[in-house]
């Protein structure tokens, strides 16, 4: 099934695409059919700079298990940051 669901957030940072580095201002997060991953549904994240056009995108398609592991790794990394850096 198509879920059609998309979470959109504003972000600040940079990503590297086929044309090199670019700033990312937006992200879309959705669990739906992937384009490339060998699974029927994946947790997909697009890091975007809409102002630079549709190709200013870094995309990942992750299994649900991988996505949860990534969330834990990100949280663990941020929690281990030395005081004063965040």
């Amino acid at each position: 099934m198509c879920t059609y669901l998309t979470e959109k957030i504003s972000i600040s940072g940079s990503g590297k695409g086929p044309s090199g580095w670019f700033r990312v201002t937006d992200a879309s997060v959705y669990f739906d059919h992937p384009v490339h991953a060998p699974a029927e549904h994946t947790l997909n994240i697009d890091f975007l700079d809409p102002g630079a056009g549709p190709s200013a995108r870094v995309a990942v398609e992750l299994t649900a298990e991988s996505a949860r592991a990534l969330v834990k790794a990100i949280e663990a990394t941020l929690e281990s940051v030395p005081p004063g850096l965040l």
Partner: protein
Amino acid sequence: MYDAMLAESITITGHDGDEIEAYAARTLQPGPVGGVVVIHHLPGYDRQTAEFTRALAAGGYNAVMPNLYHREAPGASPDDAMAAARAKGVIPIPDERVVGEVAGAAAYLRGLTNSNGKVGVIGHCSGGRQAFLAAVSLPLDAAVDCYGGFVNRTPPGGHPLQGWQPLIDKTASLSCPLLGLFGVEDSAPSPADVAELEEALKAHGRTYEFHSYEGAGHAFLGVDRPSYRPEAAVDAWQRIWTWFGKYLAA
């Protein structure tokens, strides 16, 4: 059978008279032949659906697939266009706009010199729902719904389809015979959804034929997906050829 074709990206006039990109695969038979509008799935106007479009041309039809995300990202690669449409909040594409794009594609097909004037529609996944949408909204000659979800019902609260009129309510307006191809292991449409739609078609005296495949779920026709089920897909393709052969013939 003479199977030469011409396949290329073209521009058609879509919803509101706007020009949009489409992929056409036309048989080079002198005709007259029928035409088929192919509606791509949610991941977009992709290589796989272009292959499906060419397969129909190789089978003796004129086929065209409108790019439903062209407006959000003209000239972009299909996956980037899908992502742009998501980021702009237009997935799902409004039904009125889809109907306009399909109407434009159908007009293109009817205008071809080898056309017999008959046009069908086929779609997969979200495109299956949209094939049903087109068939209850436009004068067509045949329709094929491949596992289109959310025809009968809208999902629970907070879903972007919430508030949209269930298409099953428009069954009385179905303009053409409908072939439905489903997987028993699918959850949207579930076997109960398929049964409910079948009851509505019966109640309104519509011509239809449904096939639900054991051991198959959603997207069983997708040859490069783990959901691919060769036995179901081979039978489904035969049903498609028979359906279009019956209702789109000269």
